[in-house]
């Protein structure tokens, strides 16, 4: 009896609790969230180096960008150099009393700076390692002086006490000195030479030492090893310096423009060469190319690959004032409009600049300062009149929906995009959802588009147009959302008109993107 009752009761409990969970508990909730809320105004880009505003309110493209810069001093190398000065007596032997100066002589040494006539240089960084040897059996005061090496007007001067010779071994002292900031005069004793450095050695026996004998076998010696010398100023003849390079620039945005055309009215572009070296030069733009999808378009101009003379920089208050040489590209002298309209995603500029192409015609009066640079700049000055004809932008964003919650899933819904536009450009937007094999899962698109703004009645601006684009996510997409691995965004653009499509300073595009989804909770 008791077993039967227990079983019946247990069965009833199971029936009560266990018989009813045939399905998940589920309900729907609605969620509206803002995603993007921003306004792009053309005047946000107004500054001295990008865009300007004309008196009629139209936009002027005023780009000013540096393409490449070289510091000539990086090319001027002073190799590591050793100089040696030694002294011995002609007599067989002499007696030297304590406190006697027995060496005092100046010597000149050559700096091996190939193809460069250096009269003066200032050391930015570098050092000198000095080694002196004393052959006498008394300590000696060594004074090493470099007469042409000064800092703040003070001549380079180092005094060291070198120990006496002991047990047949000469006394020796080695020390290192920092040469940063020193100005080196390389014109020698008479001031007419070049690449020449003087050294002076003065040696005295110590006053409290013994009297010693010096023979003609005793050699007083000092070595100076100049190493890791970098200069930040040079005067003389800098040699024949050649700068050649090809600069490649990628414009990632253009690589995503897959079709359509751009119509440009007028382009005015300068390639400017700034020479910050007080030395004449000659240069040329060897080529300008635009590359896209394996195709190449060259910029044609009479002066492409032709040498142009470049003036030397002027000097004021020990600073270089660069000279300017520019090459102008416009509708009349080149195919610049086609070149820009090609919308290449890679641009290549080749150049070749030669300093002192005619040799030492300055009589070794070239100068290079710390701010001396050779620079290539790009400048534009033309009105922003841009027509777009089905210009299509395509971008892929990786997105993994496979980690979607098992409890919460999107049941239905979509996005809405509200825009206010006064640009003379309109946009159609489409999203494609792709799986891991790049196969189409679904397409999300709107029947509406962002209209290009029409000209106002005065013709000095565009009317603000409002659009609301509704993007419904298909149920088929939601059912297979876990298969989606990437989203392709496609935007097609057309302008109010193709020709003379002026962009005015009041151009703005405000976007408000929000979601509106029904989520289903089930567990």
């Amino acid at each position, binding site marked *: *009896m*008791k077993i039967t*009752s*227990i079983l*019946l*009761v247990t069965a*009833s*409990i199971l*029936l*009560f*609790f266990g018989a*009813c*969970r*045939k*399905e*998940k*508990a*589920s*309900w*729907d*909730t*609605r*969620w*509206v*969230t*803002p*995603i*993007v*809320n*921003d306004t*792009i105004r053309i005047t946000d880009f107004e500054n001295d180096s990008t865009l300007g505003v004309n008196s009629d309110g139209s936009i002027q493209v005023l780009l000013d960008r540096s393409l490449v810069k070289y510091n000539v001093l990086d090319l001027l190398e002073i190799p590591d150099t050793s100089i040696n000065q030694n002294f011995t007596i002609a007599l067989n032997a002499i007696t030297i009393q304590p406190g006697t100066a027995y060496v005092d002589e100046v010597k000149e040494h050559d700096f091996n700076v190939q193809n460069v006539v250096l009269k003066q240089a200032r050391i930015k960084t570098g050092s000198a390692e000095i080694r002196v040897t004393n052959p006498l059996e008394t300590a000696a005061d060594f004074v090493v002086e470099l007469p042409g090496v000064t800092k703040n007007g003070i001549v380079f001067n180092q005094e060291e006490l070198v120990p006496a010779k002991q047990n047949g071994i000469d006394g020796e002292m080695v020390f290192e000195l920092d040469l940063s900031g020193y100005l080196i005069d390389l014109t020698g004793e008479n001031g007419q030479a070049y690449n020449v450095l003087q050294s002076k050695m003065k040696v005295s026996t110590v006053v409290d030492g013994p009297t010693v004998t010096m023979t003609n076998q005793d050699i007083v010696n000092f070595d100076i090893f100049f190493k890791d010398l970098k200069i930040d100023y040079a005067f003389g003849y800098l040699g024949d310096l050649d700068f050649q390079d090809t600069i490649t620039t990628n414009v990632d945005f253009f690589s995503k423009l897959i079709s359509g055309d751009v119509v440009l009215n007028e382009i005015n572009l300068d390639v400017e060469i700034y020479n910050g070296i007080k030395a004449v030069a000659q240069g040329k733009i060897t080529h300008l190319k635009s590359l896209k999808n394996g195709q190449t378009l060259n910029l044609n101009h009479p002066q492409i690959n032709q040498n142009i003379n470049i003036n030397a920089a002027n000097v004021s208050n020990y600073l270089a004032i660069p000279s300017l040489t520019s090459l102008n590209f416009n509708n009349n002298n080149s195919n610049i409009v086609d070149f820009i309209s090609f919308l290449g995603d890679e641009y290549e500029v080749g150049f070749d600049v030669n300093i002192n192409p005619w040799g030492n015609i300055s009589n070794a009066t070239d100068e290079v300062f710390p701010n001396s640079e050779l620079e290539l700049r790009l400048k534009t000055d033309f009105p922003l009149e841009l027509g777009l004809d089905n210009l299509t932008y395509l971008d892929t*964003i990786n997105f993994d929906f496979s980690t979607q919650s098992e409890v919460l899933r999107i049941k239905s819904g979509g996005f809405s995009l509200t825009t206010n536009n006064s640009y003379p450009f309109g946009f159609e937007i489409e999203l494609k959802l792709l799986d891991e094999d790049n196969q189409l899962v679904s397409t999300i698109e709107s029947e509406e588009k962002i209209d290009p703004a029409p000209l106002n009645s005065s013709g000095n601006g565009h009317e603000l147009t409002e659009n609301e684009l509704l993007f419904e996510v298909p149920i088929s997409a939601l059912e297979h959302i876990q298969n989606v691995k990437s989203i392709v965004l496609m935007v097609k653009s057309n302008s109010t008109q193709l020709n003379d499509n002026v962009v005015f300073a009041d151009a703005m595009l405000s976007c*408000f*993107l*929000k*979601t*509106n989804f*029904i*989520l289903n909770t089930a567990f």
Partner: protein
Amino acid sequence: MKYFIVFILFIGVVQKFYAQHNFPLFYDTLPTNGQILMNGNAFYHASDIENRITNRLIFGGEITEDMIDESYSMESAFQSIGGKAAVDLSFFSPWSFSEKRNHLKWYFNLGTYNQLAANYSNGLYELAFYGNDHPKGKSMNLASNSGFFVTYDKIGAGLYNETTRSAFSLNVIGIRNFTAASSGRGYFNSGTNGEYIDLQLDGNFTQSNAKTFYKGVGLTIDFDYFLHIQDNSLLNGFVQFSGKNIGFAVANNVDLTSVSIDEYFQGFTFEELFNIFGDGANLEEDFKAAVGYESRKASPVFLMPGYLQIGKVVDNIYNDKFQPFFGVRAYTTMGYKPMVYLGGNYNISDFIHVGAQASIGGFGGFRSGLYTGLKKEQYQLNIGTEDILGFLTESSFGKSLLLQFRWFL
């Protein structure tokens, strides 16, 4: 309706048994050689959410917007919901504690419990069941929410007085699962056209994640003390002071996660969007930083969800056909208001008795219950509910099933 049929099935099946004691309130001092007592208790009770929703949350089914509206219309600022499913077994042994005190005998118990309780704001209800699109433009309160769910086993030993039936045991608790969540300050507001989201929330979430079977331990006490009140014009009988699972536990090495959000969000700018999806962007880290996400390990000590009860019991010493009973019960858990109950027991015969009670408090409001008990020889079976309406209509606010089986050795 099907639940009602199940209930009737119980009554019909056990009709032939005899009952002597009221359920779950009983008292007698008849000498025994010990007894085994099995209790089963399952209930859920809510202050505002109707059974049409809670039934589906527990047993499955689609919750429609009409159902959500029905419960929403009765929402007050703060609501509560709680539930329990438990089975425990007690053994009142015939073995004396000592020769000198042979009226004190050994008592053992074990059980398994699942309990949950929550105190939540109406804003949380709106977000959970409507989303943020309802009601538009209105601020939803998310402050001061709390909830927990704990599963645990108990084993205990103690003594009981064979004469007075008072008992005491000390129990060791093994926590199998512990989950808790709470919020401090918080509100949610969104624009009427979804143009902004304004969210402030300081929240904590704790979950036991240790790889061991028991993820925490605790100590609790159970006690029953019976006081005989005699010759009182208002009251003749026995008053029971009872406590179950009163104590503390510590959950070992739980994951404690906190967020601190104070954001007024109107949408990303284009620059922010490029940074989010740009090279080197780390969406997960950026999101965690935005919500002030922190996670650490902790071993929190918490009060076990036991209960205390004081009430007059029905007994077999007084042979009245009808006996009233009343009392108050309080769970040591959030959201539970002390429940006051009042009922009456009627002995139909030596074999069967029935009873009814009304109560107010607990996790919700008024409830009415029914029970019956049967007895044959040394076996007793009691079955009942503290919420009969829960079986009859989905407009009520809970369900309850109580089961007791007693075997006198």
